[in-house]
């Protein structure tokens, strides 16, 4: 839980130092002695620092703070469940807390209670206080492992924010298994010492066999729309279709995002840092901390992709004795070693440490949440920037469901000049993820967004104005999975613009675009045959009338019309086209990992769509039911279409986590999160 990345401590460290260095301005006459001054110097706790600088952690305004709290709690719940090999069931509840004796409506309320419940492994009792009420507790400086918890310093910061704004402690209920007792805690942070204060600690009866529940009371603002809690949860559900998410809004509504993908993402592996991704200062620190007895041993054991031979070669090149003690390596010599490391050709880091969402899961997520007629997903092969491996995934949902299209059709009527020109003004929406976590702020400075703008969508039959998003009913999904996602700032809302990353995103988007283009062209071809015939028929009437008037009204109109129509039929392919018109333009050959929804049914990765349909009706309303009925009918009507792969049996999916769990059992009971 609360995977702490190194940037937080480093930034806090520097901040602490800078505060410490703020000595009284040098006065002309000495007013205070060095001793007195020395007496004023004192350590500043990280917690105190964050109390003053909460904007660094995403608590700059009440609306964002509410989202950040939900985010931290949900991220932790998901990370913990996945690490333990459990398919996550997460419930998020937002309630308005009455202030001054009155309960305000959700849109005006200023205080909220956030409750996040999961079915994860639970937390061992002894760890609870420190996990929830100590900043920087057991963070993972050198742990190179992909996880969601890159959003800051986790739940404790959220707890501290709550404590700061409402004075209320964090409430935790946790149970590690059906046989264990459930523990209830109320904890706060002693901000001076950065130590937990336990207010309450008792065993209680809890209806859940296993899991954790966190309750925070915070000041916040609930507002729907862009960058809201609702949007974040919806997007989370798209990128995490293996999660069952229940969301009770402060307005008393219950939204369920069903699980539509019944496999856990493969657990990411931890790797050692790659020499290219390390800074000099970091190397100095590693030299001090290493367990290796020699420099060459240090190189080969603390870095990935350095074999003992290579380590010796590097030492030789850097003119450092391979047997030297790492702790003795300092100053210019260390710097030479660092430079040599950077200049040596070293294999790219292993990429099995990253766990992409996968094309199928992306399709499933998109199909579940977005009503479209074409879906596709692309996972790029792993790539490397600055020594960090990463994978880019992109997806696309395009169009409207066929049944939705029929609605806005109006009866044919005359149109005035300038009418009907603004129909295609809709722009695409970009949804961005880093390690499966939706990014909602600072879209325009994000590498993914820039890549979307930089892609020439016109090549794929999509309109695009200069420097703008492509037009049309489209959702573009971009995910970056990496052991280290380079954010542009400590608020971690946009991915930095590394060339390698940009290139991968662009390649993924192009592939999506190509498939969309194919789909659109294929549909267009069928439609255009129809339209060709149609325009000729429309115009024949006009041309015949005009000829008739030119000839003074003495023309055998019907004869001319019949002759022209005959030509039209022969020119547009005749009977063959008639057959073709009945079809929708062929199956999805050449379109891997795509779903096409037509009025007659689904094509492509049908099993994914069916799985979604099978899981969805419980939660969603009548519209979805209608659809599934239609598709059922379509499925039975058209045996010839390649589909009807039976939905995967539930058992299989359920088995998997169990096996993983047993594999992991040696480690258990895993204290959640902060190691």
């Amino acid at each position: 839980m609360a995977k702490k990345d190194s940037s937080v401590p480093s930034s806090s460290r520097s901040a602490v130092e800078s505060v410490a260095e703020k000595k009284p301005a040098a006065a002309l006459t000495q007013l205070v002695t060095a001793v007195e001054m020395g007496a004023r110097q004192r350590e500043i706790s990280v917690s105190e620092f964050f109390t003053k600088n909460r904007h660094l952690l995403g608590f700059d305004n009440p609306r964002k703070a509410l989202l950040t709290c939900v985010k931290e709690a949900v991220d932790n719940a998901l990370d913990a469940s996945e690490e333990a090999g459990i398919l996550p069931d997460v419930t998020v509840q937002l309630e308005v807390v009455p202030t001054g004796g009155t309960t305000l409506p959700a849109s005006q309320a200023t205080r909220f209670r956030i409750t996040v419940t999961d079915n994860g492994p639970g937390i061992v009792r002894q760890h609870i206080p420190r996990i929830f009420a100590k900043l920087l507790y057991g963070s993972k400086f050198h742990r190179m492992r992909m996880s969601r918890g890159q959003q800051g310093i986790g739940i404790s910061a959220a707890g501290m924010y709550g404590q700061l704004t409402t004075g209320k402690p964090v409430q935790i209920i946790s149970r590690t298994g059906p046989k264990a007792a459930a523990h209830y805690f109320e904890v706060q942070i002693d901000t001076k010492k950065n130590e937990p204060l336990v207010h309450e600690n008792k065993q209680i009866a809890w209806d859940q066999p296993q899991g954790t529940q966190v309750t925070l009371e915070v000041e916040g603002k609930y507002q729907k729309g862009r960058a809201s809690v609702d949007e974040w949860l919806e997007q989370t559900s798209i990128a995490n279709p293996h999660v069952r998410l229940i969301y009770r809004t402060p307005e008393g509504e219950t939204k369920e995002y069903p699980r539509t993908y019944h496999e856990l993402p493969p657990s990411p592996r931890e790797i050692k840092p790659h020499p290219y991704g390390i800074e000099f200062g970091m190397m100095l620190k590693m030299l001090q901390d290493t367990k290796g007895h020699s420099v060459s041993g240090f190189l080969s054991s603390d870095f990935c992709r350095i074999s003992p031979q290579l380590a010796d070669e590097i030492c030789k090149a850097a003119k450092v004795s391979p047997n030297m003690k790492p702790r003795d390596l300092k100053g210019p010599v260390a710097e030479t070693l660092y430079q040599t490391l950077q200049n040596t050709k070293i294999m790219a880091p292993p990429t099995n440490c990253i766990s992409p969402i996968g094309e199928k899961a992306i399709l499933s997520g998109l199909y579940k949440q977005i009503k479209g007629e074409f879906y596709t997903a692309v996972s790029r092969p792993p790539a490397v920037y600055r020594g960090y491996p990463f994978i880019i995934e992109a997806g696309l949902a395009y169009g409207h469901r066929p049944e939705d299209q029929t609605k806005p059709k109006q009866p044919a009527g005359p149109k005035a000049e300038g009418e009907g020109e603004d129909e295609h003004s809709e722009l695409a929406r970009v949804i961005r993820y880093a390690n499966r976590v939706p990014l909602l702020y600072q879209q325009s400075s994000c590498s993914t967004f820039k890549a979307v703008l930089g892609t020439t969508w016109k090549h794929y039959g999509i309109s695009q104005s200069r420097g703008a998003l492509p037009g049309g009913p489209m959702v573009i999904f971009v995910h970056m999975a990496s052991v280290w996602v380079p954010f542009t700032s400590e608020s971690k809302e946009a991915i930095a613009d590394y060339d390698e990353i940009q290139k991968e995103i662009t390649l993924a988007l192009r592939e999506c675009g190509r498939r969309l283009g194919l789909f659109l062209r294929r549909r267009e071809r069928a439609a255009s045959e129809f339209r060709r015939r149609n325009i000729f028929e429309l115009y024949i009437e006009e041309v015949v009338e005009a000829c008739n008037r030119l000839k003074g009204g003495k023309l055998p109109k019907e004869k001319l019309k019949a002759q022209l129509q005959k030509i039209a039929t022969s020119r547009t392919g005749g009977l063959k086209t008639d057959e073709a018109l009945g079809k929708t333009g062929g199956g999805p050959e050449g379109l891997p990992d795509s779903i096409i929804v037509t009025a007659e049914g689904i094509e492509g990765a049908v099993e994914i769509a069916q799985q979604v349909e099978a899981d969805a009706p419980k939660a969603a309303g009548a519209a979805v039911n209608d659809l599934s009925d239609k598709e059922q009918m379509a499925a039975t009507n058209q045996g010839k279409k390649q589909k009807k792969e039976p939905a995967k049996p539930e058992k299989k999916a359920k088995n998997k986590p169990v096996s993983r769990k047993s594999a992991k059992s040696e480690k258990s009971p895993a204290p959640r999160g902060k190691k």
Partner: protein
Amino acid sequence: MATKQKKMTTAVEKKLIGLADVVITAAERAKDPTIAIPIRALSNVSFNERKGLIEMGCKKQARSFFNVGMAKKFMQTMLVADALSELQRADLTTSLREIYYRTKHTIADSHENTFDTQDESDPVIEDLEVSLAALREELHVRAENSGSIVGPVVFGDDGDRVDCAKLGKGGYSVPSIVEPEYLEIRRCTADFVLLVEKGTQWNRLSEDKFWRRYNCVLLTGNGQPPRGVRRLARRLHEEHRLPVYVLVDNDPWGYYIYSVIKQGSINLAFESQRMAIPKAKFIGLSSADPERYELPRNVGIKLNEKDIARAKELMNYQWFQKPAWQAEIKRMLGSGLKYELDALANKDFQYLTKKYLPRKLKEKDWLD
């Protein structure tokens, strides 16, 4: 005259009806009805140095009905042809915009309009002009009256006698159709025609009775002269042997106006035969004039990027290849300034009438 008119109408109408025949014959032979339309673009234009005219080449594009890209255009062409023949039968003239409204309707059982904007119908009319080799006037389509004339010339217009020497300083508004059947030149005693680009300078000359003193006809087209003005100048030049002098601003657009009057335009190259005046002279404002007439630099306007690009384009046109013209344009580019006719007022309100033009005419200082 009445019989002549009758004959003309039938000729044009026959051509229009011919379009219907194209469709009917093609339909009978199960062929795609196709009309050949000469291309109106620089690529299909050549400069005839001997005649001093821009002539249209013989490149044509086929417009056929059973081609998805052209079907609508074809249908529109037939509709416009129909409307034009209606005008012929009723013996009415009309404007481009009225044709647009006349032919616009929504096609049965659809959202689609035959024309969405006037931009679609205007080119179709020009297409018909070219492909039927009929003049716009013959098609009974008129442009707006946007030209004025004053001077010792007498017209007969619809039976009325119009003496342009007795119309005060406002003059006579040049109709868009000035063919002999519509406008008769009864008498003309002028020595030359002065065609002025701008209405403001024409007003100045008219108010100062310049035409009386120098016995000339003053014409303006308010910017790029419309067909009526060009055609009238040509008729005065041809029928009464009057030399034509052109007075325009000193900028690339002024040069181009002169060249259109002299050699014809690219878009209306097919009309050059009838409109162009190859012997027209460029009297001013030349890029040499600011120095010669001591115009201060501060009344000039800096050439912008568009001006410079246009000037360079002009230098490449075949009909601007005379060394004098190359030097003229180069001089303007070299100075980096353009001058309006109005700038002459800097020296005196009547400088144009009293000093500039008299000296020009006396020194025969013009470009060919």
